[in-house]
């Protein structure tokens, strides 16, 4: 099975709106597709390591 490169993927939605407005919140569109093995995904809670973030105490300070 031929591997598909990341450059060949054409998203249907841009990463961010072309004309973002001040004071509005946007969620950036997921572009990459890096996944881990199912064994690690079960512990992380997600297949995508880019979505995995451990909340630590005083992280946002």
């Amino acid at each position, binding site marked *: 099975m031929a591997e598909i490169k990341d450059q060949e*993927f054409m*998203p249907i*939605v841009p990463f961010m709106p072309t004309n973002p407005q001040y004071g509005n919140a946007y969620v950036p569109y997921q572009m990459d*597709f890096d996944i881990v093995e*199912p*064994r690690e*995904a079960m512990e992380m809670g*997600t*297949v*995508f390591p880019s979505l995995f973030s451990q909340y630590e105490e005083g992280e946002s300070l």
Partner: protein
Amino acid sequence: MIERFDDRFPNLPNRPTPNPIERPIEKPIENPINKPIERPIQKPIEKPIEKPIQKPIQKPIQKPIEKPIQKPIEKPIQKPIEKPIQKPIQKPIEKPIQKPIENPILKPIESPTTCPPYTMPNRNKPQADPALVRIMQYQFAIYDIALYLDTHPNDTRALTTRQRLASELHEMTMAYEEKHGPMNLFSHHGDYAKYVNEPWPWDIRFSKEGKINVDI
């Protein structure tokens, strides 16, 4: 041009004119000049009666009478008389009279011959397969990719990955059902009666390393 209500519906009877606002009758304002000026009555100031200052009488200081200290009389210590220990009298235990139980049913109930007695299945030694954890991991990964495909339907990378994981999961599920029976009610693979001998889901404890411990 503003179209009025009466112009649009000329045949309607004339609406009653709104009543004028009924205001409460206001009291006439009294002219303060006509009022007689009320002067305050000047009362004579009552001077407080000056009482003569009474000097406190100096009482003679009464000295306390010094009483002679009475020493307490030392009484001889009375030793407690050692009483002999009285052992409790052991009363003989009165056994209840065992009355013979009167069984009203004289004849035993005959068991029906059509229904065989139910025997519990042998669940003394359940064995959980560690492949069950591997199957759950694949099911989770496939489900997460399916969520990604909801927003990225044209991503061929996710489609191929999902296809690869699903085919591997199918082989693992077939191998598991061959051993332990169907995994769900809708599976047509494996022996359905085998699941009775398997440990119940609440008896299995899954550890973080993927190992299985059966808690019975």
